[in-house]
């Protein structure tokens, strides 16, 4: 089936099998391998991307469901080489070790900050329940998201 997607601002036209998962489409058809496959059972969130502005697990969607959609992967977050505040936060606050969960974790954090500009630590932990990390113990991830939240509030003049 022919599908058209806009991924990180670029339009793509591809012919895909209906059974192709969105995560395989992104990684294999579009060679955007920043989105990871961690669990195969919709638990770990390493495959999280934004679809029409909303965070979803790309391993649990068919590529054909994304026909016509606007998708942002981790590769599309930085603008003109400038890191998104979420990415900067993960860097500054050491929110990663092996980095496997990180793309999904950052996209999920981005979604949280779109919906809540002043999350508490509990809000952050709750919002990241769909993203599992085996390395960090999550504390530095929480710190990273708070860093990003502060930076975004400062930029908006609402700090």
């Amino acid at each position, binding site marked *: 089936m022919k599908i058209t997607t806009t991924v990180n601002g670029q339009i793509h036209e591809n012919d895909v099998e209906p059974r192709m998962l969105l995560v395989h489409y992104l990684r294999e058809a579009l060679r955007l391998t920043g989105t990871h496959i961690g669990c195969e059972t919709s638990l770990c969130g390493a495959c999280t991307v934004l679809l029409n502005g909303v965070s979803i697990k790309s391993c649990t*969607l068919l590529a054909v469901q994304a026909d016509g959609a606007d998708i942002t992967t981790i590769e599309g977050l930085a603008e003109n080489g400038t890191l998104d505040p979420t990415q900067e936060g993960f860097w500054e606050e050491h929110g990663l070790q092996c980095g496997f969960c990180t793309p999904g974790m950052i996209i999920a954090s981005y979604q949280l900050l779109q919906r809540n500009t002043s999350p508490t630590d509990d809000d952050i932990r709750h919002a990241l329940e769909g993203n599992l990390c085996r390395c960090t113990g999550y504390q530095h991830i929480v710190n990273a998201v708070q860093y990003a939240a502060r930076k975004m509030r400062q930029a908006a003049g609402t700090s």
Partner: protein
Amino acid sequence: MIPSAFEYLRPTSLAEATRLLASNPDDAKILSGGHSLIPMMKLRLANPSVVIDIGRLGELRGIREEDGTIVLGANTTHYDAESSALLQQRCPLMAETAAAIGDVQVRNAGTIGGSIAHADPAADWPAAVLALDAQITLVNNSGSRTVGATDFFLELLTTAMESDEILTEIRVPANPVRTGSAYLKVAQPASGFALTGVAAQVTLGSDNTVEQVAVAVTGVDNTAFRASATENALRGQAATEAAIEQAANLATEGAESTDDIHASAEYRLHLTRVYTKRALLQAVQRAQA
């Protein structure tokens, strides 16, 4: 894992969807948010030869009030439900249950219609709709019918739906005054599914007696069920902690559970009695507020 191959159809109207389903009644599956179906297809536990995607039918998505009844379209996402001011005010049990499902990403994509039609034994929605005895609208190529939630969940992953029917709407009553509710669950930490999930709603009389009470449990037996023994014990009683505790101890009467990798049957049943008490206490507190 990769699903088996299938033909993918995307109808542009409900009428077209029911026609397509009518011509493939035995081997077609309806796709809404896909967050029950696609995990099953990835494990090859479901291998439909035809998938009919109704996820973009906007007419099936949304929440509205009609004469004291709240109507949820089947394509309403769990996030739509948890963030709906209308639901939070007029039927908070539904909003609270939605907020407890899975995680943010799952709630962004999964839908109430899909969840209920699939009837996973540990899904959260069945508990809430059972407690409220929701009216569920089913449509096929010849017409439509309504089934009450208490007649809907039959057996493991088996509902009253015929293979040619599409679930289109769920109707629940708006809360009467002096009504409080709670949905509490013990979530399996990775999947978010309920080891036990208890939906409780209580309406108090002006003298603080329990006029109406509904308790429904998920995660424990092979379908969600009403804890009728608890309800019968509490109805008409003063809403005291002692009465609630006594009634909650009856929550698992008639229920059967099995051991699995997450919990033993005995533990699930024990958790259910504890969480029934907590949910009822919270419901009563909220009714009194």
